[in-house]
Structures are given as structure tokens and as C-alpha cells.
């Protein structure tokens, strides 16, 4: 079981309020991602749940039990740190065994769990090595192994992939998702990368300056961002946001159109511009259109076979159904 409830949880460092009181429900077995720009308080929130920081206000319930004043060890959660936080002086086997040693799990049970975890994570050949002798991806796996063997009620991940290179990151992302499918344990995952959030989450919590901006499934966030911040943060490439006259046409203070919802034509359309940079990815083409008079550049996602080049004149037409409208304070207008 791993149902986690935050009730009015707040965190202050001295006079600075990092997290204003917030409420959040995490269901058992859910994969929840906290996402937001750096400094938004997502890691602090995770550390409050872990018990590594004291809450300034509010209550944290784990499976209905008040765990607010419980020590980290007693909360039954496991954490994978950004730096992996492996014990450098212990072999991989001892690293993985450490939480079980602390919990006084019988030796043969320890061995059974270590072998199972090592097999699942492809670490069997490395059990006698020290962390220093492993690659980044392998260290990551050891950290996950150490978390798995505890059989925790929930896993906490603090930006676990940010120290890996791009190719490995994609691979590990899949492995963590598969792990979640297999274990069906609650996972809370912190990242600043919205692609990780979109690809892995059941439920995304978008944080900004300590506040929860929106909670929802990846598609909800993509289709109906609650405000301009979420609109700009979720989706890649970023949504184009326009204000001023263009927005006023639609009766809004700001309007947003995703790059994939803008049509391109060389003959005619709504907005005229000139191609600045065109990125040909094969599957897609990203066009950065300048001189439209609307914004510095407009990003357009087009299909892979568009053969437009720097300096070409193009006409852009937004898909009227897919225009997001926001009022003066940035909230969504329906």
C-alpha cells in the first residue's frame, strides 16, 4: 500500500516561504511526477514526504497514518537520489544489502532479494565491484536496486536521470516505467524535464514558485492547460504565446498555439513571415519563423518532408479549434 496525502503542508526556511500550504492526494500504485523549473520547490516537497526536512505546517499521511513526525526510516519509503548516493566504500552487493541489514532481514532472505534485484537490473556480474568502478547507468541501477529490496510502500526519485547522457536517459526512463508496471508500487518522481514527466507519469503535478499550478494526466495538461504557465511549460517544442492585438481578436489577454497546430503554406494564409532556422529531423521539421510582427519567432512543427529553407517566405495559419485563451491573470478562458 502506498497512499500518500498532504494536508496543508508548508515549508519555510527562516522567513522565506518555499512552499505555501498545499494539499495533494497520491493514490496507491500511481506514478506521480513533480515537474517545474529549477527552484520551484519540487525537490523540497519530495524531501518533506521523505522526512529529510521537517514540515513547517500541515500533516503528511501515509496510508492514512499520520507520518508528519515520523523519522525517514520509519516511513517505509525508499529514495533514489540525484547523485545516486551510493556508499563508496561498500561493494554493490553490500550497498543493496544495507537497508535490509538495517531492518535485520534474515541473511538468506537478503541474498534471495539481492539476487532477484540484480537479475532484474542486469547487475549480476557487478555485485562484487565498488561503485567507483561502475558507469553512470550502472550506478543508477544499483541505487534503484537498493530501493527495490526494501519493498517500500512508495519510491521517491529525485531527478534520477539528470546525470546521465541523452541516450542512457531514454533507456533508463523506459526501465523505470517497466519497473513501475511490474511492481505496481506508488512512485513519486521529481524532474525539471517535461518530456520525462509526459512520458512516464500517470499524474503530473506542475509546480511553480512552491505552488501547485495544475494536477492532471499528461494529456489533460497538454489539452487543457489551466493557465499560461502550464501551457508554456508542458509540450515540446514550447507553445507559442501571443499577447496584444492578436490576442484581443480572440477576446483574451494572451493566446497560445502549439507548434504542431500551425499550418504552413508557401501560397497564402493568416500570418506572413520568413523562415529563420529550419531543423530537419527526418520525421519532423521545426521551422522558426521570423518577421511576422507578432512575436520574435514563431515555432512551427511541420512534417518531415517540408523543404523550406532559411529566407523562404511562408504563410502560417493556426488551427482555430486548438487555440488556448488566457485572461489578464494568466488563467484559462473557456
Amino acid at each position, binding site marked *: 500500500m502506498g497512499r500518500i496525502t498532504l494536508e496543508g503542508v508548508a515549508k519555510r526556511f527562516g522567513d522565506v516561504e518555499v512552499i505555501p500550504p498545499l494539499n495533494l492526494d497520491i493514490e496507491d500504485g500511481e506514478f506521480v511526477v513533480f515537474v517545474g523549473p529549477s527552484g520551484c520547490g519540487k525537490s523540497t516537497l519530495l524531501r518533506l514526504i*521523505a522526512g*529529510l526536512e521537517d514540515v513547517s505546517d500541515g500533516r503528511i499521511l501515509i496510508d492514512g497514518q499520520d507520518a508528519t513526525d515520523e*523519522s*525517514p*526510516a520509519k516511513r517505509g*519509503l*525508499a*529514495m533514489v*537520489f*540525484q*547523485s545516486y*548516493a*551510493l*556508499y*563508496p*566504500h561498500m561493494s554493490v552487493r553490500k550497498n543493496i544489502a*544495507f*537497508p535490509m541489514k*538495517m*531492518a535485520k532481514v534474515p541473511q538468506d532472505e537478503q541474498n534471495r532479494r539481492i539476487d532477484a534485484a540484480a537479475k532484474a537490473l542486469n547487475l549480476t556480474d557487478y555485485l562484487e565491484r565498488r561503485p567507483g568502478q561502475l558507469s553512470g547507468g550502472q550506478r543508477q541501477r544499483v541505487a534503484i536496486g*537498493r530501493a527495490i529490496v*526494501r519493498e517500500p510502500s512508495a519510491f521517491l526519485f529525485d531527478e534520477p536521470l539528470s546525470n546521465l547522457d541523452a541516450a542512457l536517459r531514454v533507456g533508463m526512463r523506459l526501465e523505470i516505467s517497466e519497473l513501475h508496471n511490474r511492481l505496481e508500487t506508488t512512485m513519486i518522481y521529481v524532474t525539471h524535464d517535461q518530456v520525462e514527466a509526459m512520458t512516464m507519469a500517470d499524474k503530473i503535478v506542475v509546480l511553480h514558485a512552491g505552488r501547485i499550478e495544475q494536477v492532471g494526466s499528461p494529456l489533460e495538461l497538454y489539452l487543457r492547460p489551466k493557465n499560461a504557465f502550464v501551457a508554456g511549460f508542458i509540450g515540446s517544442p514550447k507553445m507559442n504565446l501571443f499577447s496584444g492585438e492578436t490576442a484581443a481578436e480572440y477576446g483574451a489577454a494572451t493566446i497560445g498555439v502549439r507548434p504542431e497546430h500551425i499550418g504552413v503554406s508557401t501560397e497564402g494564409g493568416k500570418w506572413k513571415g520568413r523562415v529563420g532556422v529550419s531543423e530537419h529531423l527526418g520525421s519532423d521539421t521545426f521551422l522558426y519563423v521570423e518577421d511576422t510582427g507578432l512575436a520574435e519567432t514563431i515555432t512551427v512543427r511541420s512534417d518531415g518532408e517540408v523543404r523550406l529553407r532559411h529566407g523562404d517566405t511562408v504563410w502560417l495559419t493556426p488551427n482555430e479549434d486548438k487555440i488556448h485563451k488566457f485572461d489578464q491573470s494568466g488563467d484559462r478562458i473557456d
Partner: protein
Amino acid sequence: MARAISRNSKIGWTVAAWLVALIIFFPILYTIITSLKTEQEAIAGFDLIPSFSFSSYETVQNQNNYFRPFMNSVVIAVGSTLLALIVAIPAAWAMAFSPTKRTKDILMWMLSTKMMPAVAVLVPIYLIFLRTGLMDTRTGLVIILMLMNLPIVIWMLYTYFREIPGEILEAARMDGATLRDEILYILTPMAVPGIASTMLLNIILAWNEAFWTIQLTTTNAAPLSAFIASFSSPQGLFWAKLSAASTMAIAPILILGWFSQKQLVRGLTFGAVK
């Protein structure tokens, strides 16, 4: 072509560097050579090849009882270092792992005590020692050298402890370790190398200390530094014997020192240069 030039220049730089190094090392080398000469050879003029006579070592040992100052040096250097570690480890630990707003100020203040010139407190320490019977005792010197080096020891340990990432301690806490487990299984094994190098450097500093050891001892507790200083009086001027005594006094620490070059930089610059 380019390779050939760089090889020649490498040989050139090598010759220059070795020449400089040998000049700097020469006084020590010549002392070792002289210690292996007889007294007649020693004053016979410049000669780099000794007769490998160990008689001067024997003389130093027999006439001056070299063993006692040597043991005094060992007891004082090791004793003051261990005592300093006992006080410094918890302090450095607390400051590295649960820093407060004042930690920086405390560290700077500790450093400032190291700036106090020894001679400024010569009078009171001398009088206190006279009155408490600590004069010319190993205990007295152990206490003084411990206090003198305490700031350096705390600083060095602090810089080492700070390199242990906090996330590892948090991981241990998440893994269910109590404070005792944390100290026993995680911190101690990770801190041992840092503690060892701190100890090494501090033994070197204490061994070579030559103000308090000379001021506060006469014969009983005199360590090698005070013992050697007594050779400056005219009756001690026998070149080979002097060289033998000098060689014995510096050899152990020279060897320890070679192993602790890196720690030396860190310890003596208070972490300002790494």
C-alpha cells in the same frame, strides 16, 4: 619534427629541474654523508664519499642517550595529535554535517587563535608551568602542542568531512540507519582516510615544533628539537656526531612527510588552496 624538438626540450627541462632539486636537497644529503664519516674525515674538507663508518651514530647513542629525546618526541607528537583528534573529530563533524548560521564565524575564530604569536603568551604559560609542576614534563608539552594545533586539525577534518556528500547520509537515513548505524557503517569508513592524513600532518608539525619544546623543557622531557638545539653550545661541535644526531632526528619525519605532500597543502592553507 615537432616530436624531436619536444623530446630535446624535455631532456633540457629535466636536467634543469634535477639540478635545482639537488641544490635544494644538498644540505640534507651532505648531512647524511657526513654522518657516515669519521670525525677526522668530516673536517678534512669537501668530500662526497664517506667511509661508511657508523661510529658517530654509536657515539650519539652512548654519550647523549639519544633514545630518551627520541621517545619524548614520539610521545609528545603522537600524544598531542591523538588528544587533538579526540576533541576535533566531534567538533568538525558537527560543523560539517549540521552547520548553523554561526558555523562559519566559529571556524574563522578558531583560525584566528592560530594567528596568536606564541611569544605573546610565553610569560603566562611559563609561569603557569613553573607553578603547576608541568615544567619539563611530557604531559605539559602534550597539552600545549595539542592546543596549538587544534585549529589546524579541526579545519583539516572539516574540509575532509565536507567532501562527504550529504545525500549519502540521507540515503542511509532513508535506508533505516539510526544515528549509531550512520556513524558506524557510513561515516567512519568514509572519514578514515581524511582522519589519517590529518593525523599524519599534525604529527609532523608537532615533531618539528621548536619554540615551546625548547622553552618548556630542560632534560627529562626534552624532545629531539630541544635536544638538537643543545648541540649549538661549543662542546657539541663534532661534525660527524652532529650530522648523525641530525639525521636521526629528521629521518622519520622526512619519510612521513614524503607521504603527506598533498595533505600538507590542504592543511597549511586551511583549504584555501587545493
